[in-house]
Structure formats: structure tokens, C-alpha cells
């Protein structure tokens, strides 16, 4: 073997294929061990970060809420997901969150949703008040909209006030800035019309999908109380 002179120009003998394969095999083996170690070490921290971000967003879009429970959609019916905190694995897919104030009264339902924006998928969460049929808050969880233009859907405070009390009936309508007259109208951001419209589309589609299940859940919950 030519361990001593592998880096000189005139290596006399080619190393055998077996040695080449063994070298890369060993490199791959150690790299795998290192990656699994790093993954297992960081996984609980990453999951905790995600859960914390989601929890903060839920309390933001449901102003006044002090606690929440996770609801999972099963065969068209919403059920309370019990071991959300015990398992610490975060919420299962297809789940929404019912927020309650300090007296235990329902503030609203926080629903995560996503929709293609200008650059990539916009992931957001909104608070929905089922009794008034209004949206009471909206936060962007993840977006890659153009910095300085499209990312105003995250940063523009005036745009956010659109979602403080937005009626979802008969349907959401996008209007130009300063022309909001009805409770179901959303003022678009100048220079970020596509991103603004994407947010409204996100809300409209998601409300359409979730409304029947939410109404059914509220009706059964009220029956149970009586």
C-alpha cells in the first residue's frame, strides 16, 4: 500500500478498489453516527421551539385567552386531543385549538392554514369567533415573501388591524387601502397586493373547510353543558 506517498505526484501503485471502498465506507459510518447523535441531541429542543412558537401564536390570535385545548378532526367530527402535553410531540396534523379565557368561556378557535403566496407557501394561523362568525386575529407563522414588499403581511401593523374583527359572511373581499366600508372587507397593502390577496385566499379557503366541523363541535358542546 502507498499510505506514505498518496499526495505526491508520482504515486507508483494505485490503491486497490477494496481500500477505496473501505475508506468511504468508514467515512460514511462515522458521519452517520455523528449525524444521529446531533439529531437526537437537538430534536427535543427543536420540538420545544416549535411548540412554543405555536403556543405564542395561539394566544396572539385569540386575544384574552388564557388556556387552550387541541381539537383533532376525525371522520368529520372534532374531538379533544388529550395527551398533547404529556407526549410533548406537538399537535397532530389536522388539529385546531380552542382558546378559553380565565373564566373558562370560549374565546375562539385558532386554526393553522397555508396557501401559496408570491414566492413560497405562506403558513399562518388565525383566530375565529364561531358565535359572531368573525376572524379576531391573524399571524403569519412562516413565509418567504419579498423582503420590504410582500413581507409587510408580517410587519405592517395597519394590515394586521384588518383582522381584529373581520366578518366572514357573506365572504371576504379585498379592497384598496382606505376603501374599507363593510366588516367583510380587507384593505390590501400597497405594493404587496399579491401577498395580501394570498392571505385572504388562505382565510377564505380554510374557513370554508373548517366551518361545518367547528359549528358541529360547538353545538354538541353546548348540548353537553345543558
Amino acid at each position, binding site marked *: 500500500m502507498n*499510505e506514505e506517498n498518496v499526495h505526491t505526484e508520482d504515486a507508483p501503485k494505485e490503491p486497490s478498489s477494496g481500500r477505496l471502498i473501505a*475508506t468511504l465506507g468508514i*467515512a460514511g459510518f462515522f458521519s452517520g453516527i455523528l449525524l444521529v447523535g446531533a*439529531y437526537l441531541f437537538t430534536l427535543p429542543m427543536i420540538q420545544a*421551539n416549535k411548540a412554543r412558537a405555536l403556543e405564542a401564536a395561539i394566544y396572539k390570535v385569540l386575544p384574552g385567552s388564557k388556556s387552550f385545548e387541541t381539537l383533532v378532526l376525525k371522520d368529520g367530527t372534532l374531538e379533544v386531543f388529550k395527551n398533547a402535553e404529556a407526549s410533548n410531540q406537538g399537535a397532530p396534523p389536522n388539529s385546531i385549538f380552542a382558546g378559553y379565557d380565565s373564566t373558562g368561556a370560549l374565546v375562539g378557535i385558532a386554526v393553522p392554514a397555508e396557501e401559496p403566496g408570491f414566492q413560497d407557501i405562506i403558513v399562518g394561523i388565525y383566530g375565529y369567533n364561531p358565535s359572531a362568525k368573525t376572524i379576531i386575529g391573524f399571524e403569519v407563522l412562516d413565509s418567504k415573501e419579498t423582503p*420590504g414588499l410582500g413581507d409587510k403581511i408580517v410587519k405592517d401593523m395597519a394590515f394586521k388591524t384588518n383582522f381584529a374583527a373581520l366578518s366572514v359572511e357573506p365572504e371576504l373581499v379585498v379592497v384598496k387601502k382606505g376603501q374599507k366600508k363593510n366588516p367583510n372587507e380587507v384593505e390590501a397593502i400597497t405594493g404587496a397586493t399579491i401577498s395580501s390577496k394570498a392571505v385572504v385566499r388562505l382565510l377564505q379557503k380554510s374557513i370554508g373547510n373548517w366551518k361545518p366541523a367547528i359549528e358541529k363541535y360547538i353545538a354538541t358542546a353546548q348540548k353537553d353543558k345543558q
Partner: protein
Amino acid sequence: MSENNSGNEHTSAAEFLKGLWDENPVFVMVLGMCPALAVSNTAINSMAMGLATTFVLVFSSILVSSMRNLIPNQVRLTAYIVIIATMVTVIDFLLAAIVPDIHKTLGAFIALIVVNCIILGRQEAFAAKNNVKLSALDGLGMGLGFTFALLCIGSIREILGSGTLFNVPLFSDKFEPWVIMILPPGGFFTLGFLLLFFNWYKQRRKVKKV
């Protein structure tokens, strides 16, 4: 140990310092342009990207240098890429765990450190031929030089494009930010002007010396 270390005239300090200025990866060698343009829209992003790249550079250099006599010449590039990709994935996990906000804004560019020419370039040009100590210093110098360059671009773009530096507002409300500076064209403009300045400065020093 330092068999190919061109006449042993390089001191450790010189190996460290060359990356910061004389052989700066961005301003002199014009390497790693993709992250230099793409994630330099704010100072904090630039710094995070620079430090992540430095981490990968230093640890890849140490590993490559310590195994340089064990890796056959024919598979050296494959082996280097395995080492670099491992380091990049580790830093990706660490950033997601420790600074999730920055990890979110840097997005895919963390994973793309694997194909940053500076890293493979330093392994092939330096770490494969020098001992562990010099390779680590070379990696650290190059990484900090890259961080410095990114920070220059990022600070200029953030100050002009958002009117802030490290998210601290610098001007009164009357300053209208130049939105173009945080968009891709702003990156090209800034890099172009900085390269112009560095070359003008170098030229002038050369003329003065003569």
C-alpha cells in the same frame, strides 16, 4: 509534519491573517458569491451565515488535515464532501435548536454551505497538505474573513434598505428606506462597489510602494 508547506516560511499568524485581508475569500478571491449575495440583506443574517460557515470550515479542515494520510488520493474529494456535509448538517440542527428565528430566515442557505467553494477549496488547497494546527488557523482566518465581508455587505444593505443596523433604528422617521438595497439588485450593487473600493485601495498601495 508539514511536508508541503512551501519552505516553512509561513508562520501560524500569517496563515490566520491572510484570510482576513490579503486573501479575503469574498473581496479578493471572489468565492462564495451565492451566500454573499443572498443572505446579506441584514447584518444579523450576514453574521449568522458567516459564523456558521466558519464553524464548518474549521472543523472540516481539522478532520481533513488529521486524516490526510489515510485518505487515498482517488477518493479524496468524495471523502471531503462527506466530511463537509456532515458538519453542515450538524450546524443546521444546532441553529434550529438554539436560534430558531435566525435559522428560519437563513432557510435553505444553511444546507447550501455544503457547496460553498470556499470550503472545498480550502480542504483541497490547504488542509490536505498541512498539519492540523495550521489547517485550523487557515480555516478560522478564512471563515472570519468571509464573516467580515458578509458583515460589510449586510450592514450597508441594512442601513440603506431598512434604516436600521442589527434591528436598531438609526434615522428619524423622515428617512425613506431604499427598498432596492434589501432586494437582490441591492446585493449586486453593494458587492460591486465594495470590490471596486478594495481593488482601488490595493492598486493605490502598490503604486505608493513603487
